[in-house]
């Protein structure tokens, strides 16, 4: 469903260019929840932004259901994104003060010029599905961290996307909340057949993701032991080389 092939991205810095992604390839099927972990600055967010069509890669291709995302015009890509893709960030953008949670969640539909009543009805149902319907009349500052993240998920789901990209969705939550939020993402993949790509600095937070990949210095590797090789991969060192057990 989503395919990244040999995607590279370089950022210009005064101290010299930095290679954020180095020929990364991955394939994500519908109903699959893939996890990516790696240290801060390893390229996780860049990878998600490119997969979401928010950034163009320097080289390589991004294909979504057979359509080249990287070849679309900005306008086409924006329209496509609104229809198909939703993102959740570690710190969800807070609703402006004076805006209720219900309106905040209904906003993507209102921007899409849907009828106000239908948008609110849909928003309320998504809030109920995300178990935060009791917060509908509140404002963002009244919510706990866990509720804020569930509201962010509700806002992402209100357009019923086919691809969900989540960058550290549980990184600021307590363990109980982390498990609940990751459980919700896993059931989205399992039951709603959404393709979910979730990244976090901590591999332990990627509950329910399969496969789990390791991203370091722009290189993506699968650290799971593989029967063909009969040995455990070691994580690549900071230079990006992959070392195997002797």
């Amino acid at each position: 469903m989503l395919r990244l092939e040999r995607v590279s991205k370089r950022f210009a810095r005064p101290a010299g260019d930095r290679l954020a992604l180095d020929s990364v390839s991955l394939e994500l099927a519908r109903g699959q929840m893939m996890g990516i972990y790696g240290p801060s600055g390893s390229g996780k967010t860049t990878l998600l932004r490119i997969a979401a069509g928010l950034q163009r890669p320097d080289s390589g291709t991004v294909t979504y259901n057979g359509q080249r995302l990287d070849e679309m015009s900005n306008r086409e890509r924006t329209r496509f994104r609104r229809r198909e893709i939703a993102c959740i960030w570690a710190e969800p953008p807070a609703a402006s003060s004076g805006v209720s949670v219900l309106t905040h969640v209904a906003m993507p539909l209102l921007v899409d010029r849907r009828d106000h009543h239908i948008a609110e009805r849909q928003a309320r149902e998504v809030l109920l599905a995300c178990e935060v319907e009791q917060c509908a009349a509140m404002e963002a500052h009244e919510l706990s961290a866990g509720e804020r993240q569930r509201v962010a998920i509700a806002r992402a789901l209100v357009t019923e996307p086919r691809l969900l990209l989540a960058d550290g969705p549980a990184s600021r939550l307590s363990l109980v909340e982390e498990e609940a939020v990751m459980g919700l993402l896993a059931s989205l993949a399992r039951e709603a057949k959404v393709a979910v790509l979730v990244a976090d600095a901590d591999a332990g937070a990627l509950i329910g993701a399969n496969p789990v990949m390791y991203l370091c210095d722009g290189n993506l590797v699968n650290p799971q032991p593989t029967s063909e090789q009969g040995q455990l991969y070691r994580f690549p060192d900071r230079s990006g080389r992959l070392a195997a057990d002797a």
Partner: protein
Amino acid sequence: MSAARNALLGLLVERPAYGYELANRLAGLLGPTWAINPGQVSHTLRALEREALITPVTDAPKDRKGRQVMAITQKGIEEVERWWLQEPSGAAALPRRPLLVKLALAGPDRLEASLRQIEDYTRDCAERLSEIARQHDAVPQGPAVRTDRMLLRLGLRGDIVHLKAELEWAKDAHDTVSWILYRDADWPPRHDRAGTQRTHAEIGAQQRLFARMAARQLQAAEDVASRGEDDAAS
């Protein structure tokens, strides 16, 4: 053994007595805090008799209600000795204030009412303090030193210290709740349901949403397949 039970047994070491006499002597010795009602006394005495720690004095006259004079047995005397020498005197007990429970659960809507309750509590403490201080001063201080009166005053002074501390705490509580009321402090969210059971409505809403999304995915898969066929045909 409870402290009141030990106290009754200890009083019987001095001399045999009726139940109501024991209750009066207890209050006279330890102060009003230790006052126990006649029902409690006779209940405790029956329990002590069952354990053969005390026994009725058969040749002593019964009172108008047919109650008997009770005397301590040898086993009872040994029990008092064991209690005095071996049982710990107990750690300092901290009060569990019902008012604190109310304040903790009041929430933002009951702050004014909380202040009224603290004021009632303060008034009650002050009244009891003046009553106990009056009782303390009323214990006769004759020219001869009587140890029982000294020890009674000691017990009453303990109550006075405690009530003064309660008044200080009530003032602190009043200041704290006033601060919360007038400074618009933050309340932690009470509605957070992380880790709780999902309701039927939530499960239903999630099933409907997920089914719609799954159908949309299926549609997309069919579109991709038909596009592939079209491409192949062309």
